[in-house]
């Protein structure tokens, strides 16, 4: 878990610090919630705007990273919830494990294709599972993911186990994933 560090003074300083450290991660997070590049840009700008606003209230009771990811996921969840018929199109991790892949191994060897498949797979997931998988792909440990999502570390570990199974099944079968 990331340590809580001494905070810079102003809202602008905090925002600049966060944007510099997590800007690329936030773009990937936006990509996990919106496939269309134009809409993704809007979502990304919303995330940055809400993050900037949020630093008026930041009091270092959690680490900067936890704060940034929480606010960013909250914005993205609100964005997903505004879409109509959202729940009938999204699946849980358990349901995802059951779904057939439907892509042949030759195609899966292509790196760009793999990114598209990975993004499509993430965008199918319900918000809470999506938060877990995005944090997992950003290389966070179970305790950090638990702090962001509010699930227990054991619950997060169980979900990560499922995520690994799904990823191994879908990417190993394509010949490009060794995990």
């Amino acid at each position, binding site marked *: 878990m990331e340590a809580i560090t001494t905070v810079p003074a102003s809202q*602008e300083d905090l*925002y600049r610090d966060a*944007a510099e450290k997590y*800007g*690329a991660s936030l*773009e*990937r997070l936006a*990509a996990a919630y919106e496939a269309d590049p134009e809409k993704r*840009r809007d979502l990304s*700008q*919303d995330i*940055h*705007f*809400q*993050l*900037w*606003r*949020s630093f*008026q*209230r930041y009091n270092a*009771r*959690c680490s900067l990273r936890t*704060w940034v990811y*929480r*606010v960013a*996921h*909250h*914005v993205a*969840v*609100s964005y997903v*919830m505004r879409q109509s*018929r959202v*729940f009938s199109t999204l699946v*849980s991790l358990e349901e995802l494990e059951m779904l057939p892949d439907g892509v042949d191994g030759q195609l899966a060897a292509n*790196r760009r294709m*793999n*990114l598209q498949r*990975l993004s499509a797979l993430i965008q199918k997931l*319900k*918000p*809470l599972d999506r*938060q877990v998988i995005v944090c*997992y*792909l*950003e*290389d966070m440990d179970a305790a950090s993911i638990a*702090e*962001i*999502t*509010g*699930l*227990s570390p*054991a*619950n997060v570990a169980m979900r990560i186990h499922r995520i*690994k199974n799904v*990823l191994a099944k879908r990417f190993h079968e394509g010949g*490009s*994933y*060794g*995990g």
Partner: protein
Amino acid sequence: MADELPGSPKTIWQDQTLEVPAMTMERLRQKAREVHAKTRRELFGNTAAALIAVAISGFGILRGPGGWLRLAFVLALAWALAGQFFLHRGMWSVPSPADAGLTTGLEFYRLEIKRRRNLFGRVLRWSFGPVVLSIGALILVLTGFAQSRGISITAVLPFCIAFAVWIIAALVLRARAWRELRRELEELDTAGRAG
């Protein structure tokens, strides 16, 4: 760790090239102005149903027959006006994502679903209800008008059928969305209980 091999999902995910937007302070302030303008537009959009109910009820009170039909129009008018208050009352106390940095993803998601579910109920009660009552009363006025002039009742039948279909479709869609939200809430409660 196997995950960190080239071509692993983590590497694929972290290596993707995405344009990071240059969010200057001026752009953020511009975004704030855009958000305020959007909120005003949404607020105006939310009053559209009430305006329809008020317009129809006003017409019915002034030009319609007396008796219980006028009472129905008065009721629809009062309902629509009161609805504007009750519909918007809870809207401004909702925490925005920026205010919820200390709230976990699970809790925020649960609050979002509850808020949405409550909004569905409020819209049905305070926006859809007065519109249905005012249009229903208007149909009765038009039917009476047609009968008094010896025009066949079938002349207003298509309008009545369209009105009934609209009410049923709206209720079915709302009920389906409401059930989905309830199911999602139950799943979250299960996840929350699991820790």
